[in-house]
């Protein structure tokens, strides 16, 4: 068994999601190599080489991969897939973007968002927004898999002594061009990596009221999230969304404020270690998963909580 992990990175550094994917690959067994596709990505490649348990690092470093456009990156990955039994990536926005292209290029199925490994061919994954867990068996010789990061504990960033090997070839499909990006600049930790997350739901009533969560988030060094209902209502941008169609988080502490607890949302946060729910409706389903529930009007509870922290 030999697995190729496609790194999640920003050229300079390796993103923590890669470490969860490596953990999944190690569970599968055999050699684990990491492929870094980027431009000027020595930083990320060197970081990958020191990840615990990694055998080799392949670096496809070329200007055409600068913004990791799926059309180009998928060709580079498919190129390197030969000799591997499995190609794996974290199920991030990036991984979800290019991995199915890799699978189609290799003419195999993709097993998306796995949360468990039964054996080399059999995997567990959530379906129907997490209402059901499915065990699926792949008959493909070569597997293409994306990994739900919260289901696998990250491996250590240090301890590995892999050598970085440059791979040749620049694939430019010539059908897409990066125009620009608008990355939310925030001093807060990233939602999927934060150890504390404070999320607001429809109960926040409007976007301005999300500022009430900021004071609490500041004190706890927390990321701010939201339910799909709050995103749908236009209170906050979609990159705040926690849930089956948004981000999957599993912090040490998750504070759900004015969130009823639709299964869609629970699917994105129920693996958090401690869940706190603040909601004025005592019958809200969120209380069924909360370790600590506070039945209260959030508009009085939030200032009180901020003051008490």
């Amino acid at each position, binding site marked *: 068994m030999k697995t190729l992990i496609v790194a999640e990175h920003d050229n300079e550094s390796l993103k923590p999601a890669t470490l969860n994917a490596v953990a999944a690959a190690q569970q599968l067994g055999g050699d684990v190599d990491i492929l870094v596709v980027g431009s000027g990505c020595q930083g990320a490649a060197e970081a990958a080489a020191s990840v615990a348990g990694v055998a080799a690092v392949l670096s496809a470093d070329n200007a055409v991969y600068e913004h990791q456009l799926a059309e180009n990156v998928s060709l580079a990955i498919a190129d390197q897939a030969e000799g591997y039994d499995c190609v794996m990536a974290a199920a991030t926005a990036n991984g979800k*973007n290019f991995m199915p292209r890799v699978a189609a290029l290799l003419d195999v199925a993709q097993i998306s968002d796995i949360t468990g490994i039964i054996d080399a061919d059999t995997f567990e994954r959530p379906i129907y927004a997490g209402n059901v867990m*499915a065990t699926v068996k792949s008959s493909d010789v070569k597997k293409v898999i994306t990994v739900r990061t919260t289901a696998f504990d990250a491996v250590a960033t240090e301890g590995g002594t892999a050598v970085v090997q440059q791979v040749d070839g620049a694939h430019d499909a010539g059908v897409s061009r990066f125009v620009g990006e608008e990355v939310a600049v925030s001093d807060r930790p990233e939602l999927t990596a934060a150890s504390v997350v404070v999320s607001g739901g429809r109960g926040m009533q409007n976007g301005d009221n999300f500022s009430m969560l900021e004071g609490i988030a500041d004190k706890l060094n927390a990321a701010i999230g939201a339910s799909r209902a709050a995103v749908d209502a236009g209170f906050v941008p979609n990159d705040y969304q926690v849930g089956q169609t948004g981000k999957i988080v599993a912090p040490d502490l998750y504070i759900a404020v004015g969130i009823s607890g639709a299964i869609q949302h629970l699917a994105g946060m129920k693996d958090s270690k401690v869940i706190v729910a603040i909601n004025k409706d005592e019958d809200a389903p969120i209380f069924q998963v909360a370790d600590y529930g506070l039945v209260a009007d959030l508009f009085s509870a939030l200032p009180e909580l901020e003051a008490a922290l």
Partner: protein
Amino acid sequence: MKVLVAVKRVVDYNVKVRAKSDGSDVELNNVKMAINPFCEIAVEEAVRLKEAGTATEVVVASIGDKSCQEQIRTALALGADRGIHVEAEGRPEPLEVAKLLKGVIAAESPDLIILGKQSIDGDNNQTGQMLGALTGMGQGTFASEVSVGDGTVQVIREVDGGLQTVELTLPAIVTTDLRLNEPRYASLPNIMKAKKKPLETFSPSDLGVDVQSHVTLVSVKPPAERSAGIKVESVEQLVDKLKNEAKVI
């Protein structure tokens, strides 16, 4: 400009789906079915392009057994011009759906193909990207804004941490995210009109595709339950519990 939209018949999003007691599959008997919500957004986007004069024709395709014609009719009632049904039994996998859609594209030569980013049953999030690889087209996945230019389309994409804008050469593929638009409701007159709109049926062999299965469903089970904890009486008690019992702050 011709727009092709792919739609999938799925369990209505209001239905709480459960595993059968023998764990063989999910319970789908007598369950309300509907267009996958992300596919509905795709139909809406295409119809808006037509209303804006950018698109001249909106063709809607669905792959599945005969019952998915219902969802094609729904899309026609929302404003699509004609339907294509590719008959496939069972649950065709994303790769096979992508191959069949490639066949539809070969026959129709659309300039823009819009799909939902994922279906709410399998939650695979694959078909659009696979179709991109098979056709060699560019893709704008998880789109929150689509603007068609001269021979190109600009797509604003929802990515981790913000938004990314890409420009694709037409023909191209777009997959929809939630905030792209808010789909309309079909009016009764439009539902009646939709019944008369053309709908063609093809078999996979008509499109030169041999449908295969790569993945089998072994079993299903309910997710691990998380048990409810306690209710606290006050913010003060909550903070105390978090500090001294859970030790997370």
